[in-house]
């Protein structure tokens, strides 16, 4: 009797394990089959985002290959190291692009991609991810509104530092009706990115080996 129960249990366990194995095999096979395509899609997507803010005809190198990984700083608001994408025309530096995170949005973090020309002017800004209120704060998204284009060609001299605020706070950037916190957070983040660029200009166009040699190996994560 006991043996029968035991045999029954073992059969069930074996069946369950068998199906678990089958399921895992299916997922593994799909993973292998889609791995390269997923990587390619992510790269294409990243390149598309970068080309929106650094025109693809202004540089000649492969943006995704010329990158520099720098340790996290509070200025960029991130806990992990940041990847700096460098645009070059031959040996002439054109622009860098990197992501900045604003923690002071209305709901959750706002992640931006900022491109700054070698001259210190903004080449372009895009919002990568946010959880702002639809219809109010989400106008920072280029698919909803052109507001984010108002950063183009701005620098720390134009407008002067004091004016890097939304109009309500005495600056030059528009806020939205019913939403001030969101644009304020974005303006602050872009300002910090420019500031970061200004103080690290000489470092950001180095290649990784040189950077590590001069400033110690950054934390790769």
């Amino acid at each position, binding site marked *: 009797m006991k043996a029968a129960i035991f045999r029954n249990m073992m059969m069930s366990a074996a*069946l*369950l394990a068998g*199906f678990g194995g*089958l399921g*895992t095999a*299916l997922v593994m096979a*799909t993973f292998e089959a889609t791995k390269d395509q997923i990587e390619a899609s992510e790269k*294409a997507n990243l390149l598309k985002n970068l080309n929106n803010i650094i025109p693809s005809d202004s540089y000649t190198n492969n943006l995704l290959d010329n990158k520099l990984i720098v340790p996290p700083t509070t200025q960029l608001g991130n806990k992990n190291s940041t990847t700096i994408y460098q645009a070059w025309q031959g040996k002439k530096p054109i622009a860098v692009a990197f992501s900045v995170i604003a923690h002071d949005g209305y709901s959750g973090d706002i992640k931006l991609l900022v491109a700054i020309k070698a001259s210190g002017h903004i080449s372009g800004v895009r919002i990568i991810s946010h959880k702002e209120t*639809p219809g109010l704060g989400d106008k920072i998204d280029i698919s909803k509104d052109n507001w984010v284009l108002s950063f183009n060609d701005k620098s720390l001299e134009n407008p002067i530092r004091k004016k890097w605020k939304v109009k309500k706070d005495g600056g030059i950037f528009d806020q939205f009706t019913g939403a001030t916190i969101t644009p304020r957070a974005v303006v602050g983040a872009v300002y910090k990115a420019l500031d970061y660029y200004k103080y690290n200009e000489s470092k950001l166009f180095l290649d990784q080996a040189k950077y590590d040699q001069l400033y110690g190996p950054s934390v790769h994560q």
Partner: protein
Amino acid sequence: MPETEAISITETNDTTEDTPSFIDEYAPIAKEGVWTNNAVFAQMLGLCPLLAVSNSVVNALGLGIATTLVLILSNMSVSLIRNIVRPEIRLPVFVVIIASAVTAIELIIHAWFHELYLVLGIFIPLIVTNCAIIARAEAFASKNTLGKSFFDGLMMGFGFTLVLLALGIIREVIGMGTLLSNAHIMFGDGMQWLTIEVFPNYDGFLLALLPPGAFIGLAFLLAGRNYFDRCLKDMAKKKSQDLTTEKSTA
């Protein structure tokens, strides 16, 4: 329903009696899946993704198709193994099958519909928890043949997608004044022209896009469905009454 009975008797006389015709077997499955036993309208299952993702037509269509694929895959696999699996472990086995199918489909969407993947995000893996899927595995696929289970999955998924689409259309038109905005993330880059501006220069109506809009929209859909069903019933009643009165006068 005296008329339909008479017809079906004459039909079964033509074919052999114990194998009902293809249409007789499959038409009820389609009717069940799309209307009478619709995952949302009748069973009230899978509401979480339905309410969350139905804020635009493209999102709704994306999740609807993904759910349909999972339903078909899980129904077919469950039907295939229905004679091997013991009753006491059937539910864990179904869950393993559904989870593997969902993960596989998530990877495929990630690979080939990258932007759609970014939009749908967490709701693709959450298909695993859509009760409609395990309900179909347990209630239908574990008792029926492969062909029927496939068809049931297709029809249940189709019914679910239809409700998603209806809700998506209502919420997008009222909320943003457009239809099929962001069409390119689903159909490819050349397809932006699919987007229709229903109300040009529309300011948007936030409520429809936020979760309450989903609940209100679904309530109207359900009420409309119940009203339609009652009208059908009343009409049928009237018809049968007319028939009996005609007969009695004749």
